[in-house]
């Protein structure tokens, strides 16, 4: 499903673009409640996965992203891999991911994807983050 940049993140983008507030590195998280991203969302709208070997991923502005000019221009990160050791201890199913600023915790964007329920040691989610601007 199409990713969504909530209003809170739109303001962040404008502030960084106009040198009002510096951007930050990011934390990539999986969410484990069946939530469709909405424009009113904050990071608190999502319940992060827990257990089963899950851990969030750190992305840095300096090295994690490749920026390409075009129509649209885009920023793409390398594929991120979560390898689970078993079932999650929150809700068992992963419904999508959300990206937050590493320090402030402010949401940047979220996307629901086809749900996946890790159950066995070695189950994996491979995610390639990407965002465009046009």
């Amino acid at each position, binding site marked *: *499903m*199409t*990713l*969504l940049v*909530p*209003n809170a993140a739109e303001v962040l983008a404008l502030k960084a673009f106009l040198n009002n507030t510096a951007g930050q590195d990011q934390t990539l998280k999986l969410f484990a*409640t*069946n*939530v*469709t*991203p*909405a*424009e*009113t*969302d*904050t990071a*608190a*709208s999502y319940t992060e996965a827990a257990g089963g070997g899950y851990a969030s991923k750190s992305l840095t502005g300096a090295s994690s992203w490749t920026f390409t000019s075009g129509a*649209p221009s*885009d920023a793409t990160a390398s594929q991120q891999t979560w390898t689970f050791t078993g079932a999650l201890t929150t809700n068992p199913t992963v419904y999508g*991911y959300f990206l937050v600023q590493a320090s402030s915790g402010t949401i940047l964007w979220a*996307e629901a*994807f*086809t749900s*996946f329920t*890790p*159950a*066995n*040691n*070695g*189950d*994996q*989610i*491979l*995610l*390639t*983050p*990407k*965002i*465009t601007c*046009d």
Partner: protein
Amino acid sequence: MFFKRKPAEQTRPPEAKTHVVYAEVPSHDFKRALAHFGVRHGMWVLTDHGVGIVRDVDIPNTSLVVALAHPDGTTNVDVVVPVASVKQATYEQIPVSRRENLSREAARSMGYL
């Protein structure tokens, strides 16, 4: 007397599954259709079926795909509804858990009266 021992059954661990996800960014057609229909991606709307979130557009049928929301803010059913039959939700109609960090003033600036 010897009995031939039955070979032990081999139990294989369940096969690991891999779920591959590529981020899906909004297409030009998607953004153009949303603008044409006068709605926003992720907007809270009121439909004949209840309150939900605009998730996608069905361009040929001038319809919207709306994820209906439960009172707790979760969603698990999509409905396809004509654009003309939806209107923007009010602040009160947005589930509390999905607006608890959104002031009335900020909501009003987004059209949620």
